[in-house]
């Protein structure tokens, strides 16, 4: 009986200690991709940092992006997309042309639907260099 209890306890210990690790593993995107299923950039000569972000307030979804070039005179231009999860894949539902010089910061607003999962994706050219970044997903 004691052996059985010890066996059960050890199984629970192993299972529980694996839980945070599996949570981390679940967040890992597919290797060789940006965010979730994005495209690897061919080179990063002009780009210092890129980040897409997203927030939700009620049904209002706010995608945003922050792109920083290495030089303050580098042109940055591209598109900010808002995507909605549909049947296991992401569908573009809205997009905005974005641009800046040296540093690009942009935020948009979209009236979403309740119970829907969204994410932001930015595709930009930083001085001719292609960069794509994807935010985490959030649900309204």
């Amino acid at each position, binding site marked *: 009986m004691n052996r059985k209890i010890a066996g059960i306890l050890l199984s629970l210990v192993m299972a529980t200690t694996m839980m945070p690790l599996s949570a981390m593993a679940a967040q890992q*995107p597919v290797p060789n991709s940006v965010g979730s299923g994005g495209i690897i950039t061919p*080179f990063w000569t002009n780009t*210092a940092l890129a980040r897409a972000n*997203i*927030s939700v*307030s009620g049904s209002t979804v706010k995608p945003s992006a*922050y792109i920083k070039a*290495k030089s303050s005179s580098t042109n940055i231009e591209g598109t900010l997309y808002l995507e909605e999860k549909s049947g296991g894949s992401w569908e573009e539902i809205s997009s905005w042309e974005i641009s800046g010089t040296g540093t690009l910061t942009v935020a948009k607003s979209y009236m979403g639907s309740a119970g829907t999962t969204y994410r932001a994706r930015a595709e930009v050219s930083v001085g001719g260099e292609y960069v794509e970044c994807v935010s985490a997903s959030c649900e309204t």
Partner: protein
Amino acid sequence: MNSDAVFLKSVFEKSIIERGTDAMASISQAEAVIVDIEELTRKILALPEYMQSLLYAKYIWNLESKASEEIFSVHHAKQKLQYAKSLLAYSLRLTDEQVITDHCMEQATQSAIDSYMKNIGSEVAIKKPQYSDEFKKQLKEIKAAQMNNKPLSLKRVGIAIAAAILSFAMTITVNAELREKFISWLVETFPLFSQFTSVGEVQPNRSDFERLRNMKLNYIPKGFTYISLFEAEPMLVYNYEDSSGKSLSINASLSTGSPILADTEDTQVSEIIFNGQLAYWWEKDGLCYFIWQQDGFELNIVGQISHEEAMKIAKNIQI
């Protein structure tokens, strides 16, 4: 079943259901592959009983998932069946884009149930002994006497240690603040850039962003003047520039799990402990990068400044 086991069971079950759902989403594009029937049969017999039942119901008796749910009192039979099939495919070294053919599944499940049926009736039934009340009373007294004299055994020590580890693991799992000290950044390094994703369980809310908006940058390197502030939940970006055109940007964000992509090609990224948390810094192409967390917020500095200046800025940020 006690509350801890109920909690764990629900977590595993949820994981199986989610993975089964994910597997179902990609099945139409998968390649059906023929596998060794004997090996597949062995794998099926190694599965938990309820998964075997779902497979037999599907491939031998052609029952739909709904019927299986009613017969075996199993919820989410469709997802669990898909999970079982994915597990079998994985155990047979198939890739994520491959599935076992239905014909192989039919043959192997038939073989498995044949093997199972052969073993029925071969167990020796052990009758539970019937003790008299008098004997049970005597047994109780003997046991009580033994408990007081029993020396502390290695087995008991092991159980106590396991219980302590279990308590710690449960605490760290449910206590976000405590876990924050042990799980900080998930860093993935690709050939040309690195991706920094915070994996803490902090759930941002409106008052957090208000707090971020009120943050104070109590130190900016000499010569840098304020250019602009970008403010849009969940992040802020402060921009500075000096007279020679050197730039400095400070980004603060709620912890949303959105990754930061930064140029780390051919660069050694240094890990340090900053404010009790894991932080990263490196220098490349005349820029200094510093990424860290503070009170559950994600911050980073990118600027044409030295590492020492970046650290000084970070140390003087008040949130």
